[in-house]
């Protein structure tokens, strides 16, 4: 039997946070009440090897929580997650060897150069330093980074360039499951295209499976084989982009977009959903 790249079964995750203060009684300082926020509600999904799977949803819908769970950075309150058959709680090191993640915030030692940051990553993943050095140069050049920037501190680089180094770091370890957590958010159109092209290439050349979270409808439409639309921690639809678009009727003769699908399924637009999450 062929093992799926990722299996998520009945996963629920909630966070407890300090909420509003209670009523003041006499001179006593009012205590802040604790509130539970459900980030994911009984999520089930299976991603097959070689797929580019998109998770589309507004900010605060639970996309990054899902990625953090798969990355072993969070533990589920209920349910199980398996990466190529390895449970993230029981066998985290095996899972970590198979994955890498590119997130929206390019987390680097900002005073280090790209080479120093990538060498740190290479050693953490047990790569041969000599081979890693050659590979990181090749990937960075392929991503359009100039050689003179390789040894300068990353704090002097633009956000787009930093994100490209993050992408290079993600690919350096040849993960078989690549987690892209809004990798193009905040990038200029040119950098966005470079990153998207490389994501497509890595899938073709390295037989990698990609889990991509985004709130960019066009990006999801162009890159993904299947898409799960997530709202308030629930998957409300899961299918190929083309089939998802058949879920809502066309308006004024135009083909529905993924945004129309989201509005049709939730009764509100993306921006409205994001505003609600912020208010909550």
């Amino acid at each position: 039997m062929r093992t799926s790249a990722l299996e998520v079964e009945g996963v629920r995750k909630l966070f407890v946070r300090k909420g509003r203060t209670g009523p003041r009684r006499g001179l006593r300082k009012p205590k802040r009440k604790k509130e539970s926020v459900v980030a994911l509600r009984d999520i089930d999904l299976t991603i097959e090897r070689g797929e580019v799977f998109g998770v589309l949803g507004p900010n605060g819908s639970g996309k990054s929580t899902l990625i953090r769970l798969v990355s072993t950075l969070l533990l589920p309150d209920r349910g199980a997650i398996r990466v190529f058959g390895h449970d993230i709680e029981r066998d985290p090191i095996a899972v970590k060897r198979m994955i890498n993640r590119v997130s929206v915030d390019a987390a680097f030692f900002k005073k280090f150069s790209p080479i120093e940051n990538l060498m740190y990553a290479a050693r953490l993943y047990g790569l041969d330093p000599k081979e890693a050095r050659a590979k990181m140069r090749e990937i960075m050049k392929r991503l359009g980074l100039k050689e003179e920037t390789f040894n300068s501190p990353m704090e002097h680089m633009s956000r787009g360039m930093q994100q490209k180094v993050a992408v290079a770091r993600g690919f350096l370890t040849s993960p078989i499951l690549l987690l892209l957590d809004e990798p193009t958010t905040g990038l200029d159109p040119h950098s966005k295209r470079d990153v998207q092209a490389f994501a497509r290439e890595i899938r073709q050349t390295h037989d990698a499976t990609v889990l991509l979270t985004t709130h960019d409808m066009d990006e999801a439409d162009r890159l993904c084989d299947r898409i799960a639309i997530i709202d308030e921690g629930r998957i409300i639809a899961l299918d190929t982009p083309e089939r998802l678009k058949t879920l809502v009727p066309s308006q004024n003769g135009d083909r529905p977009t993924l945004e129309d699908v989201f509005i049709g399924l939730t009764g509100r637009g993306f921006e409205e959903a994001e505003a609600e999450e912020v208010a909550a």
Partner: protein
Amino acid sequence: MSTFVREMRGAYAFVERNINLIKRYWGWEIVWLIYSLTNALAITYIGNGMGAISGQEIDTQYVVTYLLVGALIWQYLSVIFYSISEMIAWERWEGTIEYTFMAPVSRPTHLVGTTLFAIGYGIVRTLAILAIVAAFFRLDLSGANLVGAVLMLLAGSVSFVGLGILAAVLPLLYPERGAQMTNAVAAILLLISGVYYPIETLPGWLQRIAAASPATYVIQGLRACLLEGEPTRSLLPMVFLLIGIGLLVIAIGLVIFRYVERYAKRSGRLKRSG
């Protein structure tokens, strides 16, 4: 590739990263070196001025060496303690904690790398301070048992690695205040361990706490080696005791760290930066 090679590469990642941090933050390094140096000098000058302060005849040479030994040992032990206890705090400051915790490196390997760096860095810094301080005071170590002193220092390092691991859980538990809490732990160790005075000068209840601090034994043993020339053979029981305490504290530290890491992953505390 064997697991051993992979783990060693993982451990070296932390050594190399910390060396790079020193290179990139060299300005801070100079500031801290000057701070540590002036601290050691100021404390040692108290010994130099004891006769003038008390108006009595005092063996100044002995007092100066007594204080200087305390200052240098504390310098070394605190570097080990802070290098390990701040391994999480650094990741939070730089925003890299999630990346490091996502890497396929076991926590013991992470700690081995951090410890190797801490010991090397502690030795280099302490020797640099000793070299400069030696220009200010006449140090007579002709009767000292230097081999015993090194043995004592290495045995004491083991305990401080364990204490560092225990303190490292604080920034994991408390993203905003954890790093400051480790300062409080170091300050308490400094107060009770007889770094600059015999622990007999402390109130009885503090003396009882001092007996639980590994630093108390390291400092007593090192003073015995450097000031009295205590032979290595008679130090061995204390060396074994220190190694035993150290291994026990490391084991407890690793268990607590593992538990707290799981708690941090359950509660989502890895994400938040201080």
